[in-house]
C-alpha cells in the first residue's frame, strides 16, 4: 500500500508520455501543475480562514460559524461567493494603474512563494539550488503591493498603514534571513529538497539543538510579523486606521488582500516546517527502529500538513492573545531584541558547526 502522492503523479506522467508527443506531455503537465497549485492555493486559503474563525471562536469561548454545512465548514465558500460578486467601487482621485495592480502584486508574490514549497515527497513544483534565497526574495515582494496600495489609495489612513508596513518589513526581514541562515550554515545547502533530505534521520531543530531552537523561535516571531497579523497588524490596525492600507479596496480586490494574508501565514508555517521540522519527513528518533518504521507508514503530505497546521495553531494562539504593538515597540523588539540575538545565534551556530558539536 502506498499512499504517497508521488505514485499518482508518476502514473499520470507515464500515461501522458505514452500517449502524447513529449512537448505536449510536458505542456499539459506544466499547465496542470499550475492549475493544481492555483486550486490548492484557493482551497487552502478558504480552509485557513475557516480554521482561523473557528479557533478564534474557541479561544473566545464562543462557537463560531455553525450554520452553513456541518459545523459551518462551507462558511468561507459562502464568503468567497459573495466577495466574487460584490461591486468593485471605482474611486476618484486614486492612481488608477497602481491602485488596481497592488492586490495582484500581493497575491502573485504569495502565489510564487507557495509554489516553491515541498509539500510531500517528490511534490515540489520548482526546486532551485538556492531555494531558501528564492523564497525570501519573492515573499518580500508582497510588501511592494502593500506600499502601492497604501500610496495609490490617496487616503491618509492607507498611507500611514503602508509606511508602517514598510518599516516593519524592512526590519523583520533581517531576522527572518538571519535565522534561516543559521540552518543554512548547519546544512550547507540552500536547496529545499536537500534540506529536507538531510533531516531524514533527525530534524534540524534537534540536530542543531540550542541555536537551532533559538533560530526557530526567532523565525516564528519574525515570520509572524511579516504576515502582518496581530499582534503585528499595524498596517491594518482596525482600531487606529479603520482598515489601514486596504481601506479603499472593495469587492474581490479586498478579497485578494484577505486571501494573501492567510496564505502568507501558511507559507511562513510551511517554510518553518521545511527548514526546522523536517518538512515532509516523518519523526525519526535514532536508535528506535521500531518507532521509526511505524512513523514511515504515515504519508509524507500528512506529515507536512500536520506540522504546518501545528505551527499555524501556534500563530493563531499568539494572534488571539496579545494586544497590538505600537510602532516604536515593534522596532524595539526587532532591533534591540531579535536582531542581536540572531547575530549571537549565528555565532553560536558557527562555533557549533566548526567544532562538530551538533548531532
Amino acid at each position, binding site marked *: 500500500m502506498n499512499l504517497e502522492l508521488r505514485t499518482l503523479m508518476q502514473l499520470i506522467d507515464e500515461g501522458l508520455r505514452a500517449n502524447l508527443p513529449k512537448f505536449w506531455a510536458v505542456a499539459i503537465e506544466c499547465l496542470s501543475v499550475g492549475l493544481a497549485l492555483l486550486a490548492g492555493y484557493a482551497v487552502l486559503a478558504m480552509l485557513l480562514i475557516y480554521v482561523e474563525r473557528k479557533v478564534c471562536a474557541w479561544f473566545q469561548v464562543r462557537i463560531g460559524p455553525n450554520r452553513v454545512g456541518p459545523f459551518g465548514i462551507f462558511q468561507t465558500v459562502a464568503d468567497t461567493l459573495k466577495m466574487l460578486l460584490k461591486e468593485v467601487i471605482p474611486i476618484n482621485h486614486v492612481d488608477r494603474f497602481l491602485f488596481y495592480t497592488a492586490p495582484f502584486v500581493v497575491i502573485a508574490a504569495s502565489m510564487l512563494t507557495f509554489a516553491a514549497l515541498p509539500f510531500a515527497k517528490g511534490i515540489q513544483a520548482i526546486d532551485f539550488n538556492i531555494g531558501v534565497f528564492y523564497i525570501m526574495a519573492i515573499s518580500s515582494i508582497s510588501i511592494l503591493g502593500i506600499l502601492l496600495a497604501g500610496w495609490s489609495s490617496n487616503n491618509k489612513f492607507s498611507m500611514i498603514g503602508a509606511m508602517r508596513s514598510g518599516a516593519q518589513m524592512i526590519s523583520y526581514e533581517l531576522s527572518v534571513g538571519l535565522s534561516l541562515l543559521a540552518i543554512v550554515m548547519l546544512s550547507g545547502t540552500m536547496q529545499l529538497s536537500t534540506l529536507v533530505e538531510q533531516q531524514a534521520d533527525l530534524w534540524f531543530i534537534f540536530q542543531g539543538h540550542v541555536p537551532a531552537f533559538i533560530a526557530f523561535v526567532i523565525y516564528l516571531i519574525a515570520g509572524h510579523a511579516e504576515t502582518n497579523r496581530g499582534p503585528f*497588524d499595524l498596517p491594518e490596525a482596525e482600531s487606529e486606521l479603520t482598515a489601514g492600507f486596504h481601506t479603499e479596496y472593495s469587492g474581490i480586490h479586498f478579497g485578494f488582500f484577505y486571501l494573501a494574508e492567510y496564505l502568507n501565514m501558511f507559507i511562513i508555517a510551511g517554510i518553518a516546517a521545511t527548514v526546522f521540522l523536517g518538512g515532509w519527513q516523518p519523526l525519526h528518533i535514532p536508535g528506535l527502529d521500531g518507532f521509526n518504521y511505524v512513523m514511515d507508514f504515515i504519508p509524507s503530505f500528512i506529515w507536512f500538513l500536520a506540522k504546518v497546521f501545528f505551527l499555524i495553531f501556534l500563530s493563531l494562539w499568539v494572534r488571539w492573545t496579545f*494586544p497590538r504593538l505600537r510602532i516604536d515597540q515593534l522596532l524595539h523588539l526587532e532591533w534591540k531584541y531579535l536582531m542581536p540575538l540572531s547575530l549571537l545565534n549565528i555565532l553560536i551556530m558557527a562555533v557549533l558547526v566548526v567544532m562538530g558539536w551538533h548531532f
Partner: protein
Amino acid sequence: MDLQEKIASLLPSATIEQAQYLTISVAKNDLRKAAETLRHQLGFDILWSLTGMDWGTALGVVYHLASSAKPGEIVVLKTQAEDRENPMLHTVCDLWATAELNEREVYAMFGIRFINNPDMRKLLLNENWVGFPLRKDYNADPELNPLNLHSDEVSDLRPKLVEQADGTVKEEWDEIFTNKEYIVNIGPQHPATHGVLHFRVSLDGEAIKKVDPHLGYIHRGIERMCESLTYPQMLHLTDRLDYLSAHMNRHAICMCVENALQLEIPERVKYIRTLMDELTRIASHLLAWSCMCMDMGGLTAFIYGMRDREKILSIFDDTCGGRLITNYNIIGGVMADIKPGFQKQVKEFIPYMRKMLKEHNAIYTGNVIAKNRMTGIGHMSRELSINQVVSGPSGRASGFSSDMRKHRPYGAYDKVKFNEIMRTEGDTFARYSARLEEISASLDIIEQLIDNIPEGQSLVKTKAVIRLPEGEYMEWVEAARGAFGVYICSKGEKTPYRVKFRSTGMPLVAVVDEISRDEKIADLIAIGGSLDYVVPDIDR
C-alpha cells in the same frame, strides 16, 4: 467667620442667599471680580458645572463651584446678561479651563458670547444653525433648519471676541490648523471613538501635534425636551445620556426630585438603588476595560470582558426587565421590588467576578506589550484634572479626589466601608488600573449590602401630578465616569423650567488635546480607551 460673611465682605455688591446651596448673584460687570475672588482668594478651584439660563427677560449663566479640598461643598454663582439681541459676558476659562467648552455650548444653546474665550465656535450644533434652541423663544420650525444630506467642509477658522484696552470688543479670527499640516479625521465613524466623536488630528509622522475635538454628532436636545415633559416622563431620557451608567443617572434625577419634594425614601429603596448602582458600575467598567483592550488590539480580552458583563446584564434582565436601559428607578422608589432570586444571583456573581478579575489581570494588565503601551503615556497632572474637572476614575488616577459617594454620601453609601481608589501617576496605565480596582471595590460594597437589605416598601406613593416647589435644585451621584449632576430649575409647574445634566464625559474630551500631544496615533486610541468617554453623554 463663616463663608457667607466672608463672601459678603469680599464682594459687597453681590446678593447672597442660602437656598439649597449658598447662592451668590452678581451683576454682569462684577462677574470677573467675583469669579477671581472665589477662585484665588477663597480657593474654589473646581467649576463643577456651567449652566446657561433663559430667565425670560434676561439670559444668564449659573456656575456651580467647589474647592478641591471639599468637592462636595458647593457654592453657586449667578449672573445675567440683559441684552437678548447681542448678549455678552466675560469668560472665566482662564480661571477654570473647563469653562471653555461649556461656554461654547452656552453660545450654541443661548447665544451668549463670551469675551476673551479663545474659541467661540458653536459646540454641538452646526455653525449655520438658525436660532438658539434652549432659549424660551426658540422657533422650532423645521423649515428654518432643514435636514441637510450634503456634508459641509469642516472649517478650521475660529472666531473670538477680544476686549481692547479701551473696553470695546472686537471680533477676531484665527486658524486652528495651517494648510501645511497633515490632518487626519478620526471619526465621526471610527471603531475606536466609542461612538460618534470627531477628532481632527494634526500629525507629524506617527506623532500627534494637535487634536481638535468636534462634538454634536449625537446631540439630541435632551435638555430642551425635558422642559416639556413632566417629572416622571423625564426619567426615561436620563437613561439614554450615559447609557452605561443608566442606573446612576436615573438615581440622580430621582433623588433631585425627591429631595425637592421632601419625600422620605425607605431604607430598602436606598439599599436596592445602591446595589444596582454598583452593579452598573461594574458592568460599565468591564465594558470600558473590554473596549480599551479592543482598541489596543486585544480582541480576545474584549470578549472575555463582555462575557463577564453578561452575568450582570442577566441579573438586570430578571429584576429590572431591561438589560442595558433598565428603567428601574422611579420617583419615590423602584419600579418593582427585587426578585426573590436576586440575592442569590448576586452572591454567585461576586466570587465569579473576583476569579475572572485575576484572569483579566493576568492576560492583560501584566502583559509586557500592554504595559509598555500604557505606562508613562498620556500623562494628566492633578492640576490639569482639577482645572478641567476630570472626575471619576480618570481624575482619581491623577490624584483628584472627587468621589461623590464619599464627599456627598447618598443612598446607602454612608453605611458601607470602602476606599476611594486613588492613584498618583496620572498616566494611561493608572487610569486603566484604577478602573479594575474600582471593580473590586464595588464588589466589596455589594458584599456588605447584599445580605442586609432591610424590609419595607419598595415604592412610596407620590401624587398623580408632581409639581416641584419653586426653586433650583441640584443633586449629585458618582456615575461610572465621574460626578454626574442634575440641575432642575422649577417655577412650580408640572414641567421643569430648565434642566441641566452635568456631563461626565465633556471634561474627558477636553483634556485629550493636552495629554496626547507628542504621543503616537496608537497612543491616542489607548488614551481614549483609558478616558472611557461615552459620547451621547457629552452631546446630550
